[in-house]
């Protein structure tokens, strides 16, 4: 039988999705008619509710309940000592204090959505406003060092003597780059349908990691986790914003339990900007010192970002620089400054996306200063072992990605001199950047059962957030069991199933599929010895967290890539248009060439978007994000994205796991922004370091004659 793993087969959930039959959290009608909840958000950035009048709302037609901090049930407190913020309790309406703009102050539940929405507008709230801190640039001097950054990574790293080496370097780059607030904004709004049944509760939730959501809901509601079931067959995009649950889930659960009826709540698109993850704005100083030959002698990356004072979060923005290039003297540091804004959470490629935006722009600046080809500069500084940890690489193929990309893209046609090529109205430029991302392994379990009919059913609480999980799990199981694909059924997204690692941090595919592979191999062994009984034969598979896997200590296990972009910049208006883009990636063994390519193209598009479009703007008087909808917070549309392709190098990283597979959901969004930014410089000779690069920032310095 032909090997299924890696084949570019169509998504097995595809026919359901394209015919509107895939059911998302808000769409389960088999539970009966639900009540509708509508969230009322605070209209101040910091302060206290002094009076809240709900009588008008309560009298409004169809209203069943108005919940405020005065009548909300007692809930478990947020416990910052729990390492993963997504497993912590998420109490709602727990007091009169307002910590950020848009924070829920009331929930209105009514028979219809229209009634709930209308009544929500009748809740009268009087506030005592306190002066808050909302302006990131003004609070940079208040920065402090957190104990650790995201994923438990070290706050600082230092090798050799950076200061001395940088001071004496022949060629220096010392620049500050800033990146804005960004939002995941998946197309499916954050929503929840909570269905009570006696003391039990079924929660249809749009979440990436069910085991963590389950813990968070149980500890917030203070009820036995065994009484709560989560159901999540499909998720309409996550991009980090559904790693944890948010207010709508807790409020729906509280209301459903109080009213003993199903309640569902979806955030409005505008609410999502204040009630769900925001990627912290950053200010990043990158210092590179090199000899005249281009060899790096000193490499420094200092990142300051905002944090919420009530829920500390630090993106690992300077960590990419720790493993990318060789240099004997190194310094990376993360600092946080508190602002009264919604809390920071993971947004696709947390840390890597803004960190590489700055760092790979600085490498381009160094190449320009040295009059070197940016690829040659990078190859010259390719390390033999991990430059900070001294351990060998499991499977480092950055140089291959750059060379293959250069060949396919036609890099030799890159204008050697910036602002020297014109095509009609357009100044044309090429840019490139490297991609690097860590591979993570978390505990993950899966189960497989084969019936006498020969059909294998694989079960895991893993989610498919558009990543192709249903499909790749079927492919891996078919190969492990030695059965055709149509003999495998994949069941995901229920907390009753064995706990997988969930979808996040690019670990979903490799972790889930390795545990599925082990379950299938165990079942095969059982089948070899015995005959399938009437009730079927079952086996489990499990993987341990990376902290217990020696390979993850002894080897640097990363994924790599190289991005190439061609942009055009209008000679008069400085309008910037992407013309084409290519990425070449090495992420071990690819489980499905079609879905993997799609994910990488998606990630690269996020890079284009952070380079040119996305820019969350805070009203420094109130702490409100002023551009809180999809017409003002710009994300790419069809017209913004021309020819983009992603090439995957054949590979197998046996140090990562026995499948040889690594994650790639975020790799496409690592460095793609810098490739576009570097192309804008190559086209115009104008270096913008305040991202995104918009025409108003390019225009004043645009060359008059080319």
């Amino acid at each position, binding site marked *: 039988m032909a090997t299924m793993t890696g084949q570019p087969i*169509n*998504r097995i*959930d*595809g*026919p*359901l*999705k*394209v*015919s*509107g*039959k895939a*059911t*998302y959290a*808000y*769409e389960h*009608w088999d539970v009966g008619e639900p009540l509708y909840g509508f969230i009322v958000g605070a209209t101040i950035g910091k302060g206290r509710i002094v009076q809240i009048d709900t009588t008008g709302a309560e009298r*409004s*037609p*169809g209203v069943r309940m108005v919940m405020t901090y005065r009548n909300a049930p007692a809930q478990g407190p947020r416990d910052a000592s729990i390492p993963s913020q997504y497993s912590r309790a998420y109490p709602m309406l727990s007091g009169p204090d307002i910590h950020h703009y848009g924070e829920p102050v009331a929930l209105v539940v009514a*028979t*219809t*959505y*229209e009634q709930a929405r*209308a009544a929500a507008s009748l809740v009268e709230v009087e506030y005592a406003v306190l002066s808050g801190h909302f302006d990131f640039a003004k609070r940079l001097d208040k920065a402090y060092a957190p104990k650790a950054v995201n994923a438990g990574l070290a706050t600082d790293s230092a090798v050799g003597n950076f200061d001395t080496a940088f001071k004496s370097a022949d060629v220096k780059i010392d620049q500050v780059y800033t990146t804005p607030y960004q939002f995941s*904004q*998946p*197309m*499916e*709004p954050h929503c929840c349908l909570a269905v009570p049944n006696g003391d039990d509760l079924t929660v249809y939730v749009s979440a990436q990691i069910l085991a963590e959501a389950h813990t968070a809901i149980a500890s917030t509601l203070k009820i036995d986790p065994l009484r709560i079931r989560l159901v999540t067959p*499909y*998720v*309409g*995009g*996550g*991009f980090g914003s559904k790693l944890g649950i948010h207010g709508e889930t807790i409020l729906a659960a509280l209301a459903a339990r109080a009213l003993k009826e199903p309640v569902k709540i*979806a955030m*409005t*698109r505008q609410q999502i900007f204040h009630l769900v993850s925001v990627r912290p704005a950053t200010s990043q100083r990158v210092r590179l010192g090199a000899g005249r030959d281009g060899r790096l002698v000193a490499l420094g990356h200092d990142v300051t970002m905002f944090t919420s004072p009530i829920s500390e979060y630090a993106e690992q923005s300077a960590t990419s620089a720790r493993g990318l290039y060789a240099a004997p003297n190194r310094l990376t540091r993360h600092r946080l400054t508190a602002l009264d804004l919604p809390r920071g959470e993971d947004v696709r490629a947390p840390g890597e996306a803004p960190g590489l935006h700055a760092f790979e722009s600085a490498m381009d600046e160094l190449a320009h200063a040295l009059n070197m080809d940016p690829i040659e500069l990078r190859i010259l500084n390719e390390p033999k072992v991990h430059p900070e940890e001294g351990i060998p690489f499991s499977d480092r193929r950055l140089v291959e990605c750059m060379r293959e990309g250069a060949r396919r893209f036609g890099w030799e046609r890159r204008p050697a001199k910036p602002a020297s090529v014109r095509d009609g109205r357009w100044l044309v430029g090429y840019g490139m950047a490297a991609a690097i991302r860590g591979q993570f392994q978390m505990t993950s379990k899966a189960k497989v059962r084969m019936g006498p009919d020969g059909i294998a059913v694989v079960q895991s609480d893993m989610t498919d957030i*558009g*990543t*192709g999980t249903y499909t790749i799990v079927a492919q891996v199981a078919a190969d492990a069991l030695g059965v055709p694909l149509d003999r495998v059924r994949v069941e995901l997204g229920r907390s009753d199933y064995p706990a997988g690692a969930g979808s996040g941090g690019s670990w979903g595919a490799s972790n889930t599929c390795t545990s599925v592979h082990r379950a299938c191999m165990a079942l095969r062994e059982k089948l070899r010895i015995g005959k399938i009984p009437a009730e079927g034969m079952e086996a489990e598979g499990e993987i341990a967290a990376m902290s217990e896997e020696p390979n993850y200590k002894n080897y640097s296990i990363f994924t790599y890539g190289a991005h190439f972009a061609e942009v055009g910049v209008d000679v008069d208006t400085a309008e910037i248009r992407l013309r084409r883009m290519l990425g070449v990636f090495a992420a071990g063994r690819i489980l499905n060439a*079609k*879905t993997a*390519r*799609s994910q990488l193209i*998606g990630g*690269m*598009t*996020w890079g284009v978007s952070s380079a040119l479009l996305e820019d969350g703007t805070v009203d420094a008087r109130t702490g409100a994000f002023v551009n809180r*909808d*999809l017409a003002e917070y710009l*994300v*790419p*549309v*069809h*017209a913004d*994205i*021309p020819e*983009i*392709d992603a090439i995957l190098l054949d590979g197998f990283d046996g140090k990562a796991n026995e499948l040889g597979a690594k994650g790639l959901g975020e790799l496409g969004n690592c460095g793609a922004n810098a490739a576009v930014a570097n192309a804008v410089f190559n086209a115009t000779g104008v270096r913008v370091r305040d991202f995104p690069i918009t025409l108003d920032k390019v225009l004043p310095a645009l060359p008059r004659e080319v």
Partner: protein
Amino acid sequence: MSLSTVGDTKNAENATENAKVALTVNGRVRQLELDPRTSLLDALREHLHLTGTKKGCDHGQCGACTVLINGRRINSCLTLAVMHADDEIVTIEGLGSPDALHPMQAAFVLRDGFQCGYCTPGQICSAIGMLAEAKAGWPSHATADVAAQTTALTDAEIRERMSGNICRCAAYPNIIAAIRDVAEGDRG
């Protein structure tokens, strides 16, 4: 137009007045009593349980709610249900089923024109409406000669005309490939 009002039976006291409307959806007439504030989108999803039509922004900014009304694409979040008593409404469920896909649905599967699938029904309905507009010679911002009787459906034309449908997974190149397959199939 068959529109009349009745009291809200669920809230006799302090009642809002519901409106009776008959909607023709996917060829079937459906009798509804709706709060007149109900958008066509919410009527489809919350009253007819046709949840294939998606709510992404409820503001006409994302296109996830696109349906076909009398063959033309429309954001169903921006129009009230009671305005469509005399219209033929086609939703994603009316185009094809998992076992018998419409050619555009099949092309999206083949080209992997989606990931999470949430914007997909809107993209597909929009693509079908868009091809009809182009066939009828409607120009777009990308059309060089807006007075021309016919339009060559280049990739730039398709991208421009599909820009009302946001895909955050960014399956854009694959969506264009799927639409091109269907458009070229039509020509052949």
